[in-house]
């Protein structure tokens, strides 16, 4: 009976993942992360993704801070933040977030403040969506592990 719950949760997870792939929110790099998770590192994906969230929120705050400043001119600094954001997003497979960063960077290279502001809003939106979906995924995983509890060998 417990097994059924775990199977259903796994199906829910797979459906969510399939949706995210279909929407282009995630790409195959996320699958790479899953491949790196095993008994010796059972929380690898959530650990890395949580580091990513922590860093991303800092970067987003910095970006907003820069753009909200009326006398803002340091597009180079903005470019540095964006490169970091792009890099980490690509490393975890956050495809849509990364793509918005690319567009954002293009606007920044043209010193286009209005374009940057638009890009920032889009970036915040995409990031929020990703974060919510990742939380959903991790919750499902937690529930699945609980439901499948009897089948998993206890680790010392």
């Amino acid at each position, binding site marked *: 009976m417990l097994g059924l719950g775990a199977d259903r949760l796994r199906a829910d997870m797979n459906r969510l993942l399939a949706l995210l792939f279909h929407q282009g929110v995630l790409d*195959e790099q996320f699958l790479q992360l899953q491949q*790196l998770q095993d008994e010796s590192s059972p929380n690898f994906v959530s650990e890395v993704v949580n580091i990513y969230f922590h860093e991303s929120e800092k970067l987003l705050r910095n970006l907003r801070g820069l753009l909200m400043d009326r006398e803002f001119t340091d597009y180079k600094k903005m470019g540095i933040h964006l490169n970091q954001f792009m890099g*980490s997003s690509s490393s975890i497979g956050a495809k849509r977030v990364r793509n918005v960063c690319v567009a954002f960077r293009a606007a920044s290279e043209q010193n286009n403040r209005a374009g940057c502001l638009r890009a920032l809003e889009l970036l915040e939106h995409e990031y929020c969506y990703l974060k919510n979906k990742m939380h959903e995924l991790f919750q499902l995983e937690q529930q699945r592990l609980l439901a499948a509890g009897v089948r998993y060998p206890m680790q010392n």
Partner: protein
Amino acid sequence: MARNGVVSMHWRSEKIDGFDLSPPDDEQVHVLAVDDSLVDRKVIERLLKISCCKVTAVDSGIRALQFLGLDEEKSSSVGFDDLKVDLIITDYCMPGMTGYELLKKIKESSTFREIPVVIMSSENVMARIDRCLEEGAEDFIVKPVKLSDVKRLRDYMTAREFRVKNQQIGNNNNIKNNNKRRLRETCDLSSSPLSMLFSSSSPSPSLSPSSLSSPSSPSPCLSPLPSPPILSYSAPCSPTSLDSPTRRLKMSSSD
């Protein structure tokens, strides 16, 4: 050792049969990974550990030099033999010292210039790739780094270790030059003396020196891990694409 081709080949093939290609713990490949991004450090660290490498991850070129004992200000008191770094893998774009500058510093050092250095970058700019290879980088990987990239490095290190051991036993003088070869050349076994040892009817150059190890597994050290996906996830690059740096460009999600 005998220079006679037949005798030394025979001897070498005997050695291979008895040669344990999975390095014992103290001879595990030790990789120094350099990346300012914490996310990327976590990922590369895991990629390397799961590929049976010992990893030291640092967040800057300066720290890398300090670790090696090359930093002028704060040199490490640990001797080179104790550190035994077998491979350095570094991000290109870093604040302060770039990966390129780190590469130069390492190649300028008489102690460390023999250590292969691999550059990672999210930008695949040919000029950048060429510049790094010209400066002596062994390989250039376009981010995001995948398991297949690390596997390729691992196989290269295994073959390199094997060659170095052969050299130490005092064999063929040609092997000395192999250490300086570019990765793409060393992966092509048909141009190395070792290829003579394997079936002469082998049609095309092996993808990687993993033909040295048992054909049934990607690497002996992976067998203890129970998770099948890693073993099936070989996704090697195609033989033709090994000929140019662009093989690492992410052209398609062929993985």
